[in-house]
């Protein structure tokens, strides 16, 4: 609860009215969590535990039923360019070239074309896709699309990067490589990352801190701090110890 927290989540609760049954559904029980500046936090939990809901609340795409979220001490009321988001379904605009996708945030801010071109070049370079400006998303592989999605979010120079299971649809090899690249980008861009995943290995590999969530209705079950220095060895005993710790916490939370 230090004043230096980048993101402060204060008793955030979310209930939905289910469209099918017209009943109140508890998606998120009151969640309290502080995320430090520059921290890499993974929200880990079973499917449907409300971790994406929490992420969307931070993004400002979903309004909490009660409680509030502060970013730099200011309450979140709407989405904003300071919180970039990367989606599982990548969410690239298929009618725009890769370059236009990456330059879209700057375009919205009214940036000049030549300045935009520089930014596009820089961030496509950062994700290893220089020279792909003129292609359309439809021409890219799944991993490349995700990299463009990350570049598009970063091109706005956000201070917070919200990632909603971004590598969930990738094959295992690509996924491992993307995790490596994301860490590089995180270190280079010095952003605060909130990363939603249901993969224990992914969370243990990436996070400074894992927020283990309970099954629906979601709340924070445990926090796991990981101090192991980065490039973590997925085969090391330290890694598997943390993995099993998280697995034990989660195993009681699988909803049928």
């Amino acid at each position: 609860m230090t004043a230096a927290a980048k993101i402060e989540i204060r008793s955030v609760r979310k209930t939905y009215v289910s469209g099918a049954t017209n009943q109140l559904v508890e998606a998120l029980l009151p969640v309290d969590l502080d995320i430090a500046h520059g921290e890499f936090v993974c929200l880990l939990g079973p499917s449907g535990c409300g971790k994406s809901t929490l992420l969307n609340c931070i993004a400002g795409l979903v309004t909490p039923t009660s409680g509030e979220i502060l970013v730099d001490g200011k309450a979140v009321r709407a989405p904003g360019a300071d919180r970039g988001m990367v989606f599982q379904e990548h969410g690239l605009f298929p009618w725009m070239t890769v370059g236009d996708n990456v330059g879209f945030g700057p375009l919205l801010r009214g940036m000049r074309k030549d300045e935009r071109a520089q930014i596009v070049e820089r961030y496509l370079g950062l994700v290893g896709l220089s020279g792909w400006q003129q292609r359309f998303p439809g021409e890219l592989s799944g991993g490349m699309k995700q990299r463009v999605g990350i570049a598009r979010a970063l091109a706005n120079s956000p201070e917070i990067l919200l990632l909603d299971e971004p590598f969930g649809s990738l094959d295992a090899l690509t996924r491992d490589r993307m995790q490596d690249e994301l860490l590089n980008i995180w270190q280079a861009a010095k952003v605060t990352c909130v990363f939603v995943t249901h993969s224990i290995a992914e969370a243990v590999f990436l996070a400074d801190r894992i927020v283990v969530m309970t099954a629906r209705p979601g709340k924070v079950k445990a926090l796991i701090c990981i101090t192991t220095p980065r490039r973590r060895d997925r085969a090391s005993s330290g890694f598997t110890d943390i993995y099993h710790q998280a697995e034990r916490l989660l195993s009681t939370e699988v909803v049928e």
Partner: protein
Amino acid sequence: MKVMALGSPLLRRIPGGRQALENRAVGITSVAIVLVIWWIVTRLGFVSQVLLPAPAAITTTFVELTKSGDLPRHIAVSMGRVLVGFLIAFSLAIPLGTLVGVSRISRSAIMPLVELVRPIPPIAVIPMAILWLGIGEVSKYSIIAYGAFFPIFLNTMTGFAAVDPVHVRAALTLGASRAQVFRYVILMSAFPNIVVGARLGMAMAFIVLVASELIAAESGLGFLIMDARNQFRSDWMFVGMISMGILGYLLNLVLLGIERRVLRWRTVVHAK
């Protein structure tokens, strides 16, 4: 007219090189075979020349009518009608389709009406058009516009209703205002359907043309065909019909070309 699945012809890959040549060769051969059979049938006198003129006779008539300026005049008049009718339909269908696609309340209000009117074929509307608008050009434009309206309207509506929410969310998190979301995301998402709707609307306008020219027309391809019936000139009739076939074919080709051009991103294939 059914709402077409999101530009399905576009999803076909434009065949490159050899395959394209092969497709074209097969196509030309099949047309040639029909012509040869037609020629044999008329040559051997299986059918009367009055019922089915020989290809050569039709070609001669075609050249005559072109030289006399009659055929070009009919074509120009007909195309003018198609264009005016289409533009009327377009300028009504786009705003209405947008409104109905974007707002659920207006969808609930307008759709039952549309579903009731839509099955009424343009030909059935002709008497009312004459009663209300007379037998001049205006009623012809109206009937064409009536026919062309629905494909454009329904496709526009579908386009606006089918915006992917993840695109809207992505734009919002990139800092887009409501107006910017509409301009850059919603409009662009609907655009492919609007283009497809316009092409189908144009095709419909062309189909309805003849029906509209049944009303006291003095020129136009529909008139040429009706006049040929009265004069017992089956060769004129065939020239009129074949002209329509060729014109419709060319028109569709041009519109498909435009569609491919503006929707280039949809024809690109996955890179390996």
